[in-house]
């Protein structure tokens, strides 16, 4: 149905354009304005068919939540995917690979896109 209506839309738009062109011919005489209206109508139906139908919604994937882990003793930092049970300031069993110190979850967050800046 989708493709048929699109083809029909193209055909009607083209026909409408042809009728409009023909209406502008000075030899047509008094029928020209009727042809003009008919051409416009046919063209608008064609455009309608071309643009009709549900536009597929772009499904935005939900933003990944990340967990930021830091060493309590040095500046070591690791960012990994969020795991159920993670919470901010949760002390972890794992040791720091750099200094073997204790590690804590310092952040659980998402990074959202910056919207385009407005002129104001």
């Amino acid at each position: 149905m989708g493709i048929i209506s699109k083809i029909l839309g193209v055909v009607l738009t083209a026909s409408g354009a042809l009728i409009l062109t023909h209406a502008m011919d000075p030899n047509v005489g008094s029928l020209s304005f009727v042809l003009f209206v008919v051409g416009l109508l046919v063209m608008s139906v064609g455009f309608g068919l071309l643009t009709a139908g549900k536009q597929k919604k772009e499904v935005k994937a939900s933003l990944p939540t990340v967990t930021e882990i830091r060493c309590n003793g040095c500046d070591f930092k690791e960012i990994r995917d969020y795991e159920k049970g993670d919470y901010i300031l949760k002390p972890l069993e794992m040791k720091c690979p750099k200094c073997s110190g204790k590690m804590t979850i310092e952040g659980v967050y998402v990074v959202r896109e910056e919207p385009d800046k407005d002129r104001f």
Partner: protein
Amino acid sequence: MQIGLDGGEYSWVLNLVFFAFIMIMSLYGQKIQMWQWLKQIEAGLIELKRMAIESRQSAIDTFKEHGTEEEEVAKEIDRWLDYFTIMPVDLDPAGILKRLDHLLDQRRDRFQEFVTDLTPDASNSERMNLENTLEVTQVLSLIFRIVRHFYLLGKKTGSTIMVMQVQMIMPELLRLAKAYSDAMDAFSQGKPIGDGIGPLVVTKLAREYDATPETYVHEVTKEVGYYPIEVEGRTVYAMRATGPGGTVGKPGFAVKKIVEDNKGKIARIITVDAALKLEGEEMGRVSEGTGAAIGDPGPEKHAIEQAATDNQIGIEAIVVKEDEAAAVGVLDKRVLDSLPEVIDRIKIAIRKRTKPGDKIILVGIGNTIGIGL
């Protein structure tokens, strides 16, 4: 080309079309407009219904993880979706806040009872998160049912004003519903949300001054406690709701209690909270001002203001600006990055507006979901 009204033998056709158009538009123009508005509301309603159904399913999935059968969970949640709270009578405003506070306590107790009955094996933190999940599902269901009510009523009565108002407010409702719908993931999984920046600031500051989960004094009031810390010679009661379960507790009454327990000794109350940003403002922008930064229905804010006024205590607020989606959704990196600035401003407030030996209440307002002590 002859398109004029007076040329050619077929010009009557164009005249007829023109007059027919004028007649149709003057007689049925409003009906056509109504039809357009109703179609737009219908499209919004479809979206609202989808969000309500998805959040209900998400709540069912989260509850059934705790061992209860899906059918039973679904039946109970459906029963709970239109749970209501009747606001106290305001014809006689005297004591209205006390009555409102009582009703809110009762409501909270019923929520807790419901969640406990359905998930007897869940931990306290998990139950708090489940309560939050249930509340989000309720909100989405309520938005859908109210919009549907006005849509159907407008259609039935043909009331242009009713339909027009719903159509005009629809984009805002959809934005709000989308913010809550996106937040379901945070609430059902116990992730920290943007509203939790207040408690997070308090804990981070308290830890700088050697506070630990063990030094946290629990239950000053329901689900609210404090870290007693020393900051440059001042005693600071760094107060927040207990986490990492999702709760806001009753921080206003906790402030009131600490003020009463330290009669005449509290020099300043500093509140930290998330605030809705204006369009165009930066996410995570830090602002400060005077007053109690707390967005409760009334009793908590009143308790802080009354305690401050009765004891002539200076009161100030520091807020982090966020939009609705960030406030109820998973914590945004830009909001988290505002932490050092908020802590700096608190230190400046303490240093400039109090003197050594003073006692200060610092209170972080917000939902503690996903934020440990």
